[in-house]
């Protein structure tokens, strides 16, 4: 479905419904690529200038909650460019990335899709997610969190120009992060 240039920043109810549908469909398709291990296709959903960032979260007193997450330029779990994301994908494809061989079984559930701003060429979308993973016989991990994306309109779809991933964990309760969020 192509986007009508005249309607994209409108608050017209029909336009909003269509936009919501397009964004939700984009996220469902993205999740399917990840869960089907089609990482080379998945990484092409990101713009060349993308920034993919998962900060460290710290248990803080309520009055210091502004310092809960680390910022770009500080330590993070993921601080990725398109180039390094491509590298991560290439790594899995080598056949020698043992953390993913045997491959993890994953399921991405993306919900609560909220478009918080629409600037025409780009829009901001917030989602909640569950990433469920099992490995080997009995390893089980559930990551729950939110993503704050900037989606750039591109052809008849979007490119992810920015992704901030906030996990509901401080001490990460898994032995690694060999999967994508």
């Amino acid at each position, binding site marked *: 479905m192509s986007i009508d240039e005249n309607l994209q920043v409108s608050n017209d109810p029909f336009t909003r419904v269509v936009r919501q549908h397009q964004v939700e469909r984009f996220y469902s398709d993205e999740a399917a690529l990840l869960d089907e291990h089609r990482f080379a296709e998945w990484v092409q959903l990101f713009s060349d200038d993308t920034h993919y960032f998962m900060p460290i979260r710290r248990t803080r007193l309520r009055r*210091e909650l502004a310092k809960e997450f680390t910022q770009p330029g*500080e*330590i*993070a779990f*993921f601080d990725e460019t398109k180039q*390094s994301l491509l590298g991560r994908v290439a790594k899995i494809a080598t056949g020698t*990335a*043992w953390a993913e061989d045997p491959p993890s079984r994953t399921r991405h559930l993306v919900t609560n899709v909220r478009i918080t701003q629409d600037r025409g060429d780009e829009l901001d979308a917030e989602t909640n997610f569950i990433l469920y993973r099992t490995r080997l016989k009995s390893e089980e991990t559930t990551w729950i969190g939110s993503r704050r994306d900037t989606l750039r309109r591109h052809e008849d779809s979007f490119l992810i120009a920015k992704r901030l991933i906030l996990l509901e964990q401080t001490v990460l309760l898994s*032995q690694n992060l*060999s999967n994508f969020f």
Partner: protein
Amino acid sequence: MTIATGKLRQLVSLERGEIDRSIFSDPEIFELEMTQIFGRSWLFLCHESQIPKKGDFFEAPIGRDNVLVVRQRDGGIKGLLNTCAHRGNAVCRAEEGNVKNFMCTYHGWTYDIAGKLIGVPGLDELYHNDLDLSRNGLREVAQLEVYKGFVFGTLDPQAPPLADFLGRTGRAGLEFLAGQGELEAVPGIQKFVIPCNWKFAVDNLFDWYHPQITHLSAFQTGLLPSPPDITGSKMKISGVAAPDGSELQMPGGVVSGDAGDQLVFIDAFGHAIAGPTVEAFGDFGGLIDHSWRDTPEARANLGPMSRRSIGHVNLFPTCWITPAFNQISMRVPRGPMETEIWWFTFVPKAATPEQRATIIQGAIHSFGPAGFLEQEDGENWAQSTMQTRGTASAKIPQLLQMNLRRGKIVHDSDGLDPPYIECSINEHGQLWTFASWVEWLTGCDWDELRERTTPPDVI
């Protein structure tokens, strides 16, 4: 809890290079480690740059005790046990931050940042002023010392002074970081959990045999520059093949058959450094700045051999210093089969924004749970730990036999260098760690421990 010394000694054979696998999952051994090692040793807590201002605190573990490392009014640092004198509740539930005082949320007992009890609800009406506030402050660690910005604590009042405990090996290891000038810990301590015994994680830091296989995918994709192929294709890998029968393609690696590409330092109390020389390792594709090694300070603080090492350091028991991207990894034992990994990253305060970014990006992309390298480590250690529970599998000895009895130890007793070995890839660092570990478990006093962990002439 005690286990007879004779029985303990059977767990590790320095002569045969074998250890008993049960030590990686036996709950009795774990309890003994908690008292005899983590209850006595100096342990790294944090860096003073993490708590610059009065009332700044960082919570760090000493075994199963939680310690609030707190900047004091006079600029000093105290280590306070995070447990209320009344019912034992934690008086602080944040990992880090700044406070004016600590108030227990159970009954409101309030302590100042020095740990002094300054407020008790109903002191007059309910306790009739019979409660001695001066005796009921937060308990302090037995000793706390700062060495070149690195804060250490111990629960043992008998422990020798920190610099003495560290010895030449420990001091050299810290110099790999501190030698670059005044440091700052970058905000954000990566913390994650691996279902493994902490000693597998420690063993691995000395292991320069595993990267070429465990981390092959990172090197194959060029995500991390392969260290130069110093094998000269001399190391035969025939017979090493994937499950589909294909021979592995290795784009160079750190494994060498040449004597002298690796340096190992082993020392009293179980400290060790093992890894390549700077000449063999290079600068990791231009990412590592070695220029500090030629400064007068580095020459004054390190011996000619340790100045050439870019090996991995273990301050016994679990403080891993990796000089490549200025990091410290603590392996925090939470149970026989559960270990938390805490990563600290340091940058020189004088670093340019570009140098700072190189170090931070190098750190994030090498180690930590999403690191191109460390992603692959956890499952190895978890599976190794799990197999030690099998009735038959546990009886198979763990092998540490590479270059066994070929490590000639040079004792440079007058100089700055710790006892060292020039060699090829080996398992001396691991073996020394386990040999010393047994001596700690016997519970002997510090003098005897030092004597029994003084390196021999050959390992």
